């Protein structure tokens, strides 16, 4: 009876996810393994032509490298800003900490198109920053940062930073205070305590934050388009262009290059950070 109830509960959500999440992805992969067709979604011959074309074309290589470079810059900046902010938040009283975390959660709920629009209004040639800086006499010409990779970095960094801060702050808050006291009682200064106790213990939060920021950077089509314009295209823009041009197999193949890059990067992040599963009682 119990097992029957368990199966009855599991069946509807499992079916929905298998049929509308797993199946479409398998089908997308199936499409990517076919040649293009004029009239149908895909041709009749099975081929790796789409993947081969992506690997051989220097245009794709340029864009993939640009994507990786941009993602690496964003990740590096997010780690520095994220850790500093998380460290400050983790030392606050619980009341303030919750307030800060809610202030970070709220922007995550606002649609990325709205947040990117905010940066368009700030960074544009006639935008708020341009006008203010010119009014103050700091710059003479209007800002030309919008529609460059720099604008994409600024926009995506600020859009994704809350994930990093929340993730690190949660793992910092879970560290048992007595570890710090033990380190200090054994004669370690604050810097050594940080490097040998706090930093390793917070590595799970750093790893999950880094993973999330990297993954979301790769798939942030709208932000890249609005802030980067046609000059700063990334891998995800090519997926979109493929769809708009009805090159279904090509778009499908590109769609699988994206998670492949993401998986490779995820493995790298895991290997570099080796997040340690040491749990404390927390405060």
């Amino acid at each position, binding site marked *: 009876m119990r097992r029957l109830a368990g199966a009855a*509960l599991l069946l509807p*959500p*499992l079916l929905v*996810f298998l049929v509308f999440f797993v199946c479409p992805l398998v089908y997308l992969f199936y499409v990517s393994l076919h040649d293009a067709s004029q009239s149908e979604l895909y041709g009749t011959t099975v081929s790796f032509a789409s993947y081969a074309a992506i690997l051989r074309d220097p245009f794709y290589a340029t864009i993939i490298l640009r994507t990786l470079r941009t993602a690496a810059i964003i990740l590096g900046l997010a780690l520095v800003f994220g850790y500093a902010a998380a460290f400050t938040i983790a030392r606050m009283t619980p009341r303030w900490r919750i307030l800060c975390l809610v202030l970070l959660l709220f*922007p995550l709920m606002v649609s990325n198109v709205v947040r990117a*629009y905010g940066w368009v*209004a*700030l960074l544009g040639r006639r935008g708020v920053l341009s006008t203010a800086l010119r009014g103050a006499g700091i710059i003479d010409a209007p800002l030309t940062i919008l529609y460059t990779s720099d604008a994409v970095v600024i926009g995506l960094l600020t859009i994704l930073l809350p994930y990093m801060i929340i993730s690190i702050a949660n793992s910092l808050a879970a560290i048992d205070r007595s570890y710090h006291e033990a380190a200090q009682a054994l004669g370690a200064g604050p810097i050594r305590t940080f490097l040998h106790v706090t930093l390793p213990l917070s590595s799970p939060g750093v790893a999950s934050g880094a993973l999330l920021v990297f993954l979301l950077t790769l798939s942030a089509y709208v932000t890249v388009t609005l802030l980067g314009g046609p000059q700063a295209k990334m891998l995800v823009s090519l997926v979109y262009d493929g769809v708009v041009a009805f090159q279904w197999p090509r778009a499908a193949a590109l769609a699988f290059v994206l998670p492949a890059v993401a998986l490779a990067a995820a493995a790298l992040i895991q290997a570099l950070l080796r997040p340690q599963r040491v749990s404390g009682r927390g405060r």
Partner: protein
Amino acid sequence: MKALGFILPAITVLAFLVIIGPIAIVVLAAFSPTEFFTFPPPGLSLRWFFEFFRLDNMRDAFTLSLELALSAATCATVLATMAALAVVRRRGLAAGLLQSLFLAPLVFPTIILGLALLLFYKSLGIGILPGLILAHVLVGTPYCFRAVLTSLQVFDFAQEEAGQSLGAGPFRTFFLITLPQIWPGVLAGWFFALIVSFGELNTALFLTGPGQTTLPIEIFSYLQFQGSQLVIAAASALQVGLILVLILAIERLVGLARLTRS
């Protein structure tokens, strides 16, 4: 060390400024009385909000987004609650796999999910509206799943057994014993799914059609093809306002601490 005591709070303040600043600018721009946004604005007016509700395409997108969010969040909450109830007592490999499956849309590149669904719908002939609802259910379910799972982890299942040994069927046990104790998690999950669905962008990008567009997609295409008109700022401000109302509702009904934990 002294310098660090100054630098860390400074970086934190800067981080909060760049995270919240762009949203604040958009909301401020929505209240401009002028044709173009100037900073500081010469005054405040509601003309762009009136303009927003005067434009058919904007009003339709707003209504569709609201309907979509309400229906998708409700479906997602039902599915996620079932999934969480089924998964929470299982151990081992199967449980781990199921959990990863129900959480997968959180980390999976959403634009690729959108493309996969587009091709899948095309070959099955599924219409725009049911297709959008399904996509939003998929994207919202992980948030509900996590919220319900968190509240189930502190639930004492011996109470369910007690109910059943006293002759209550599985439905009565759930509605009389389990649900009253986990409802804050269920409600928080519903709110989460509602907010996520209302702002959903990347998955819906390929799935909307002529006359059936969600508000974020409408904002995006306006920004892309018609430049930044301030009616877009009003649309954005409405979204921000709705989220603030929902956050206040969560705070009133289940407490903000739950929000930061799940």
